[in-house]
């Protein structure tokens, strides 16, 4: 189980491969994953860049708690959360959640739980730069 906060761009495929490589081959039958990617549009406006601020100690603690909760609620083998911080561009991955389990239901349920819990509890804040050069804080996440 692992939480990674990345100051630089990351490749979800590499992170998932590294995560799976920590588990014995053939021990898991299901891997559910989710990647959130920065879009070039939000709320009808063109967005050219984004800065992700966070509260580092609290973020890490909250995300670790979210993973612990997933492991207690579902029969999963392991879970991973990777989240960007700092300056990012459209097309860049923002977040990755991944869960390995023996069977698919637990992987699907836990992977979605990780994302919803992260969105509601983890101390990240997005500031967008629009095409006009204006910046604005994103005020609310879309409901899941």
């Amino acid at each position, binding site marked *: 189980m692992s939480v990674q906060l990345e100051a630089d761009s990351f490749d979800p495929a590499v992170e998932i491969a590294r995560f799976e490589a920590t588990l014995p081959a053939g021990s898991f039958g299901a891997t559910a994953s989710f990647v959130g990617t920065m879009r070039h549009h939000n709320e009808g406006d063109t967005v050219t860049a984004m800065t992700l601020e966070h509260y580092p100690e609290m973020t890490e603690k909250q995300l670790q708690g979210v993973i612990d909760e997933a492991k207690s609620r579902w029969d999963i083998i392991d879970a991973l959360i990777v989240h960007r911080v700092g300056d990012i561009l459209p097309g860049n991955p923002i977040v990755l959640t991944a869960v390995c389990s023996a069977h698919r239901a637990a992987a699907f349920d836990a992977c979605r739980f990780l994302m919803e819990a992260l969105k509601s509890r983890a*101390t990240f804040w997005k*500031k967008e730069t629009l095409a006009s050069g204006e910046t604005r804080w994103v005020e609310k996440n879309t409901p899941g």
Partner: protein
Amino acid sequence: MAIKVKFFASLREQLPEGINQVDADGIETISDVWERATSTQLMPSHVLCSVNLEHREPHESVSDGDEVAFFPPVTGG
């Protein structure tokens, strides 16, 4: 005798720089910390808060040495 204070995101930008602690004397709740740190502005209802890295409600108590943080709704993921 101090309580550490942090502001994040839009709150950090809107509030005067440099307030990173308040005197614990006479402080009972998170709301009290807000009022002292922001020079008596009332804490807006949308502001979220934490004590020692755990989410808390404004009426909850704080102690000398605690770290209290204020922030807008989270928007990660």
